[in-house]
């Protein structure tokens, strides 16, 4: 909540004192002239972005940044940001793109533009292959683990039938442990958490049964930069078509890209 308020405040200030007009130059031309693409990436949000053993940032978003810079034929400059300051960095022209597991919402759309989606970000109900569930109604009589108070908890409580046994754990680790030790048949959680379980190569592999809430990640760029937007969208479309984006998803999320992305 604080971050959103901060962001709105910063956005308001930025608009009033005219940072918006500074960014209205031709961003694509600037990038090509400079020879580097400056990208805001997360460093505290694995698997999208974290600091590797050699202290360099690694993750889905970093691979995505490299891919785009590569296709533009320029070098990449990674700028570590937090979720609170990633949009101000873009608005003050400190970066050209925000590739920082950024979700789209109307508030943000007022101040920046978004590319097409480049990464899946959703929560849903996950269970091993042998659990036959395809929609919320079929959870009746099943035991589902969830982290108490998380978005999944609130949504699942709304959609699951009354006969569903919902076990609410204190944190994600409790939910994961309950799933892996067989205390619950299914878990409602985010695809990132499911990816973290898959990365450990457990005997029980969580597969997505149905979506609860879908909010994929988009690349953020300054408003009114049609040339750059078109270029970035083109690169994303090409990466989807030739399988290189799917390879990144396999590497960091352990699953194929969903068909609707």
């Amino acid at each position: 909540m604080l971050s959103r308020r901060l962001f709105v405040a910063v956005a308001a200030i930025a608009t009033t004192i005219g940072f918006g007009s500074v960014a209205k130059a031709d961003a694509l031309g600037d990038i090509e002239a400079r020879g580097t693409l400056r990208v805001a990436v997360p460093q505290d949000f694995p698997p999208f972005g974290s600091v590797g053993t050699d202290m360099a940032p690694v993750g889905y978003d970093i691979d995505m940044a490299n891919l785009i810079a590569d296709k533009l034929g320029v070098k990449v400059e990674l700028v570590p940001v937090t979720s609170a300051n990633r949009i101000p960095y873009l608005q003050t022209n400190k970066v050209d793109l925000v590739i920082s597991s950024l979700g789209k919402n109307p508030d943000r759309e007022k101040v920046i533009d978004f590319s097409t989606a480049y990464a899946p970000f959703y929560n849903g109900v996950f269970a091993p292959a042998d659990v036959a569930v395809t929609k919320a109604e079929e959870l009746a009589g099943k035991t589902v683990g969830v982290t108490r108070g998380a978005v999944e908890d609130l949504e699942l409580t709304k959609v699951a039938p009354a006969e569903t046994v919902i076990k609410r754990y204190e944190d994600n680790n409790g939910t994961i442990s309950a799933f892996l030790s067989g205390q619950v048949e299914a878990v409602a959680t985010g695809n990132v958490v499911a990816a973290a379980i898959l990365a450990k190569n457990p005997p029980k592999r969580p597969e997505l049964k149905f979506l609860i809430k879908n909010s994929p990640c988009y690349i953020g760029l300054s408003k009114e930069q049609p040339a750059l937007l078109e270029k970035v969208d083109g690169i994303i479309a090409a990466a989807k078509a030739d399988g290189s984006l799917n390879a990144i998803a396999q590497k960091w999320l352990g699953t194929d890209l969903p068909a609707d992305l």
Partner: protein
Amino acid sequence: MNYQFEFGWLFEYYPQIAKGIAITIELIAVGAVAGILLGIVCAWVRALGPAWLKPFVAGYVELIRNTPFLIQLFFIFFGLPSLGLQLSELKAANLAMIVNLGAYSSEIIRAGIQATPRGQFEAGASLAMSPFETFRHVVLVPSLERIWPALSSQVVIVMLGSAVVSQIAAEDLTFAANFIQSRTFRAFEAYIVSTAVYLVLAILLRQVLSMVGWAIFPRRAAR
């Protein structure tokens, strides 16, 4: 301080609290009865039992008394399924509390047994009672009477310690407070209510235990 207290959620969430209270009472009722029985058996072994059994009981008591209750609970709930023993969260919580109180109460009860004057055992033997009969009819009740206040405190401690079973999603009183807190964001009020309920429960539990004491220790009642 200009915090605005808001207890309106009580109307919506009191079934959760009632369920939480019921589960906490169930946990301590089962835990106390079975735990004290286990404690009596272990105390008998350590004070008077066969020599070959003593190291096993001593190992159990020391293992439990020197590890955190939360870890014991996680061991039972998340660990044992790997060995094929799958317990629901309530059974796991029951077992953890029995095992925990069993270890602590055995040491308290052993103190009571060892404080029994030598002459009592000899009196039993002179009436042709076996050592077990002497323990059962002569030693046990006065031993328990001696340590009953300490044992009562231990039971209350275990009841209060049961708050951590919410960590394995057992829906006790603490779970209810956490649940309400995560839905209404009225953390202060939710914990005020749960604190008050725990306080009342602990005082009632003490009353119940002293009434049990009066019932099984007739000499104390006569006093």
